[in-house]
């Protein structure tokens, strides 16, 4: 194991580090015993430096950062070791002084933005609080600054959204709110825990630029936790690799990428899918499996064509429209609407994977929810496995939902905090009387194992898991029913490459054996390329381009699609200095006035099945 002894020289020369972590260990009380989840970690972060922490999901990245901030529940956790912030020891600091450090000297972007935002305060107020806590500024100034920040993180119509609540935001928008909140106070050190998982690549790029810019202007240091090796390559000066609670390798990003020593590091990097590697392939491709000990990679069997083109589509969506009314004024009159989904039509066949990509906040999740009628759409028709979804009564709706399962974008929020994950996973199975309790337990255990969790975690509760682990629990739950269609909303975004590969392979396997159809919503273009048969690109609530995967990826037509493809980060540290400059275009908002009449859209067929919106 490499220790940080000589790292400071590499990172920031002889300058004293901003953050210096020494022999940090963190344990949790589970039941009656203490379980150590972070073991003896040491590293430094120099001024202006960006240090990335990568590692397996559940390896202790978030816990490390929370330990630095001393934000773990006091009664159930224990922190040992030392943390120095500009020479000041934090672990033993009195609570009141620690408070002044938090948010002021160190800011943190949390991994799960949904649960991390206070549901009952307008987001504007929450961001402003980060400002007013540490500085004396007037309400108006704070508001102006918040608006500026919101624009910076590319929230459209920032003024209008200042007073909206977290639940009215899309996953990516909430994440951007978190980012704005963390950046507001211009901290010396920013800890960013997976800050861009819910963002499409274009916005991700802009956010990364924003962070870089702040680093340059304010001399901020960044501790960056991510699974996206492309991002790591792009932003990190140095990288720490974590595995099962240990920092197994620390070094300059270049070194890690090209001369990684630890087998896990090598496994990690070789498994990274690269955009464009699929070429003209028509079918999805499994991910390679890498043995962690040897680092050897074995290619898996080709997948067969599972798409049942001949039959009627299992899911047929026609002119689906969902709007959220905006009320304003004392009387609460309707003053406009968010046109979250506007006249969306597509179909999905048995055994097919249709990926839905698009800008954050463009209505992907809303589309998914509308299809299963978790939100009542404004208009449109959906036929799912023969059910006319929009016309179903409660009873048949329930029956229909057996055929379609949903993996929610925010796994933590979608798990009942008071239910052990074992019961949570088993529940749908028992509910639909698919077998005995024993059978359901076995099946759940099997699925958990397949997504890389151990079945003895079944007794534990959602808050005792890492973000990625929770996501896998949500996947296991969706698979319990053997549904015909799965709407997977950012289902693998919080997983490290290795586990992502494992889970994606699992999904492909299931597609092979059960002819599952996926509506795969994702921002990760590399994964999308790998798993999908067809791809639909959404922009401002509408599908702007749809077609076979190869056609869309190799021959993008719509300007937005082109922009999207260009923005995908490449896992190559040498390209780090290249700056994108996309933050200049205006941000479009899906908010329309009451009298807005959506224009009639025309589609042009580029090639077979490849349609592009015109005008």
């Amino acid at each position, binding site marked *: 194991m490499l220790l940080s002894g000589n790292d400071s020289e590499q990172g920031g020369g002889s300058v004293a580090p901003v953050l210096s972590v020494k022999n940090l260990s963190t344990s949790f009380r589970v039941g009656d015993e203490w379980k150590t989840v972070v073991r003896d970690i040491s590293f430094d972060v120099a001024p202006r430096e960006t240090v990335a922490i990568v590692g397996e999901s559940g390896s202790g990245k978030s816990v490390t950062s929370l330990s630095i901030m001393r934000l773990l529940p006091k009664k159930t956790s224990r922190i040992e070791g030392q943390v120095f912030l500009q020479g000041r020891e934090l672990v033993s600091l009195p609570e009141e002084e620690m408070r002044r450090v938090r948010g002021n000297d160190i800011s943190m972007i949390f991994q799960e933005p949904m649960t991390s935002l206070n549901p009952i305060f307008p987001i504007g107020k929450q961001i402003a609080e980060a400002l007013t806590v540490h500085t004396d500024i007037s309400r108006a100034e704070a508001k102006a600054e918040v608006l500026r920040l919101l624009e910076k993180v590319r929230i459209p119509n920032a003024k209008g959204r200042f007073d909206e609540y977290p639940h009215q935001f899309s996953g990516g928008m909430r994440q951007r709110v978190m980012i704005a909140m963390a950046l507001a106070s211009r901290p010396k050190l920013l800890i960013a825990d997976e800050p861009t998982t819910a963002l499409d690549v274009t916005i991700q790029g802009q956010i990364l630029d924003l962070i870089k810019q702040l680093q340059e202007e304010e001399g901020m240091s960044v501790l960056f936790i991510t699974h996206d090796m492309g991002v790591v390559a792009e932003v990190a000066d140095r990288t720490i690799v974590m595995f099962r609670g240990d920092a197994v390798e620390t070094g300059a990003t270049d070194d890690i990428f090209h001369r990684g020593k630890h087998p896990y590091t090598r496994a990690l990097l070789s498994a990274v899918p690269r955009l464009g590697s699929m070429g003209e392939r028509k079918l999805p491709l499994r991910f390679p499996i890498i043995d962690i000990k040897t680092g050897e990679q074995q290619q898996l069997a080709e997948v067969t064509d599972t798409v049942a083109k001949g039959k009627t589509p299992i899911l047929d969506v026609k002119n689906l429209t969902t709007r959220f009314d905006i009320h304003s004024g004392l009387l609460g009159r309707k003053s406009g609407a968010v046109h979250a989904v506007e006249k969306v039509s597509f179909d999905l066949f048995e055994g097919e994977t249709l990926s839905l990509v698009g800008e954050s906040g463009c209505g992907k999740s809303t589309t998914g929810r509308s299809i299963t009628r978790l939100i009542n759409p404004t208009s449109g028709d959906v036929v799912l496995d023969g059910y006319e979804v929009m016309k179903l009564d409660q009873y048949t709706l329930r029956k229909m939902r057996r055929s379609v399962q949903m993996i929610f974008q925010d796994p933590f929020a979608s798990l009942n905090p*008071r239910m052990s994950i074992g019961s949570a996973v088993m*529940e749908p199975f028992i*509910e639909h009387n698919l077998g005995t309790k024993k059978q359901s337990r076995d099946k759940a255990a099997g699925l958990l194992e397949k997504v890389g969790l*151990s079945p*003895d975690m079944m*007794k534990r509760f959602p808050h005792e898991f890492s973000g990625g682990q929770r996501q896998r629990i949500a996947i296991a739950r969706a698979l319990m029913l053997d549904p015909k269609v799965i709407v997977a909303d950012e289902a693998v975004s919080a997983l490290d490459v*290795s586990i992502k590969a*494992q889970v994606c392979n699992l999904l492909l396997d299931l597609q092979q054996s059960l002819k599952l159809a996926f509506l795969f919503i994702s921002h990760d273009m590399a994964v999308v390329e790998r798993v999908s048969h067809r791809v639909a690109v959404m922009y401002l609530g509408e599908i702007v381009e749809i077609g076979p995967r190869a056609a869309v990826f190799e021959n993008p037509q719509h300007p937005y699609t082109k922009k999207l493809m260009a923005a995908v980060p490449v896992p190559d540290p040498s390209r780090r200095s290249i700056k994108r400059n996309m933050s200049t275009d205006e941000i479009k908002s899906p908010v329309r006035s009451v009298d807005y009449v959506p224009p009639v859209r025309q589609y042009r067929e580029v090639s077979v099945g490849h349609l592009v919106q015109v005008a």
Partner: protein
Amino acid sequence: MTDATIASPAPAIASTPTRSAMADMWRQFSAHKGGVAGLIVFVFILLAVYVGPYIHRVAPNQINIRDKNQWPSLAHPFGTDNLGKDMLAQVLAGGRISLAVGITAMLLALFLGTLVGVLSGYFRRLDGPLMRITDLFLALPLLPLLLVILLLFRDTLRAAFGPETGIFILIVVVIGVTSWMHTARIVRGDVLAIKSQEFVLAAKSSGMREYRIVLKHILPNVLSSIMVSATLGIASAIITESSLSFLGLGFPSDFPTWGRLLFDGANFLQLTPSRVLWPGLAISMTVLSVNYMGDAIRDALDPRAVKR
């Protein structure tokens, strides 16, 4: 672990010793000091009340006017009242009724309140009608209501179940039916807040039946308010029972109950303080023990609670 990407030492044994949820609850409960203390006190009270009379063999309504208004002594550990009845025997006998009435009436009120609260909070269509009924019940003047209930049902119940059981049923139902409204409104408020959370949506999307969603996802999350209602409910049920007897709705006047003993004793506060001390203490200890047990259950069901 064939298709795991990264072959790693298999995570622990898959043999989950399938301890049932109840056993697990119990384990958590028993780790809760307050809960255990509450349980011990509660069991002690139960034992005292049900077994005590076999040890302290003085009839509670044995009048001995020559021994009236005595302070505690060996013969009368809790002293006597103004008719010379033994207070200990009365407290024990009274406890049986008070506990039975208090607990059953509380459970009934809790059941009704939770049912109405959950239904109106969860099902929008039921909300209006159910809440207006709740308003009505809140508005009804209690005394006339009780008198009317008495008028309509006492003789029927007495005929059907005999004087004692009949009155017991009447009292429990009367208290239950007139005290569920607070619980209903509180539960409804909580349900309204809970049901907008995403895990409820997730449960819906997996095709759960509504009643299961309510039972497994909503209810556990409103439990803490329900627990408080339960604790407070038991106290007010015990007191309400005693005030019913002033309307002639309660048990015959020679049936002691804690509330009644306290009421009758209030005037004798200076003369024989032990007359009010014991029944008052009994009520308080019962309520406190129920409170601590409620806390323990609450904590056991809240995985994030600080476990002690």
